[in-house]
């Protein structure tokens, strides 16, 4: 390419050729983008373009890692300042939750010892803490687009993390589900948080006769469960867990028993067969700096990860 003065415009054949060449280049780029978009949308997560994306992500991992560490103190200060604004409301909410959780502890104490003994047997009870290796990871990059609730973590296939590995994080009531790995490179992976609009998780509420439903994000920081029959006694404060299966008994990529959040509202119209349950998640993905990826260990866990 060569620079041309701005004023050098004409309708000569040369200028026409320039315009044609310019349009060809730009048109070619438009076509290239459209082809890439079409192929990317159709191919599976193991396709060449996804592989290219994963490889490029691996290349910038060291830079993102460094920046992430550098800005962490600033993020902490910002989060602290934000938390001051809602401190009073949160205190009241936590006091209420505390009361509900105490009641649940009493209810659950009887079963806990036996449950612990059972979950020591790999594969039995779909126990996520036995069937999976827990791989702690730093979040080193966030999506550059506001429409994606995704982040990059500094662990990948070399640590056993694969596509469809569940991701948990420390929440207000211990570890809770936050997302799933959608792309895995050797040293970094991409996690899609549950707040992504297309998320759908089979969940159960053990307090409500093991009611089963499908959890989906609604508003920012809130989920709703659909498909629970009106007759199931769902109450505010019940804990929502992953069910380990989806509709029609299909295996879910998420093992059974990972907490997600607390029921904070139940409702239905008179004509409805099912009730809609509002869920307050234990973890807000936007405030995370660290997560734990669950690397499949048992045959069942590996089978879950390959579930389409």
């Amino acid at each position, binding site marked *: 390419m060569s620079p041309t003065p701005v004023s050098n415009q004409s309708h000569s054949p*040369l200028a026409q050729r320039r315009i044609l*060449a310019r349009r060809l280049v730009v048109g070619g780029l438009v076509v290239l983008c459209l082809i890439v978009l079409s192929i990317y949308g159709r191919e599976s997560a193991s396709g060449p373009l996804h592989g290219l994306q994963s490889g490029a992500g691996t290349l910038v991992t060291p830079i993102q890692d460094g920046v*992430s560490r550098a800005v962490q103190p600033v993020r902490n200060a910002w989060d602290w300042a934000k938390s001051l604004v809602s401190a009073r409301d949160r205190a009241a909410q936590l006091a209420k939750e505390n009361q509900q959780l105490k009641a649940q502890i009493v209810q659950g104490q009887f079963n806990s010892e036996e449950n612990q003994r059972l979950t020591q047997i790999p594969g039995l009870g779909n126990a996520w803490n036995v069937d999976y290796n827990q791989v702690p990871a730093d979040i080193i990059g966030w*999506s550059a687009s506001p*429409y994606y609730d995704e982040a990059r973590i500094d662990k990948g296939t070399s640590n056993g993390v694969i596509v469809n590995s569940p991701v948990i994080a420390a929440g207000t009531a211990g570890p809770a589900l936050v997302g799933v790995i959608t792309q895995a490179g050797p040293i970094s992976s991409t996690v899609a948080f549950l707040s992504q609009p297309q998320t759908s998780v089979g969940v159960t509420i053990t307090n409500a006769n093991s009611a089963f439903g499908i959890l989906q994000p609604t508003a920012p920081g809130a989920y709703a469960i659909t498909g629970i029959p009106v007759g199931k006694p769902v109450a505010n404060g019940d804990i929502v867990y992953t069910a380990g299966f989806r509709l029609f008994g299909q295996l879910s990529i998420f093992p059974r028993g990972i907490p997600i959040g607390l029921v904070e509202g139940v409702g239905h119209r008179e004509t409805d067969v099912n009730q809609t349950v509002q869920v307050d998640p234990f973890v807000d993905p936007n405030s995370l700096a660290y997560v734990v990826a669950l690397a499949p260990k048992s045959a069942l866990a590996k089978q879950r990860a390959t579930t389409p």
Partner: protein
Amino acid sequence: MVALMVLAAVVVQVSLMPFVDVADGIPDVLVCVIVAVGMLRGPLVGAVAGAAGGLLVELTSPIGTLGVLGLLYLVVGWGAGRLCGRDEMRGLLPPVVLCVIAEAGVLIGEAFVQLMLSRPLDFGDVVRSLLASVILTGLIAAPIVALARRALGAPRVVEPFLVSGDG
């Protein structure tokens, strides 16, 4: 120089900017650089820089598409390039306004593509993140455009190389 600027903008955009998340809005350094490049080097360079920058962001940031941002930034670069050398673009305010309009266009285009891909979007969320991103981008646009002008010098339209012998 243009390639270096785009590369630097991509690195900053994917590694630093997502941490500046205010009300679900993320400032867009790349759109400012693409607008500046287009304004200073014409539609061809603007479009090429836009397409390359957009594709690089999609390759290196956890975004679930490939080609969408390339296409949108290409349009931004091309559009800004059409204004290359115009008297109205000499001050600092017009390019800043152009950056804001371009960012709004990119986000609306991205939201539209998400809907085309059957990804449900909450209208309120989209409006909030769009407003926040546009305001944040407007805040960072002036220094970026000034830096770009310093680095690239006076506006001049760059033509395809195949006819360069005549230029």
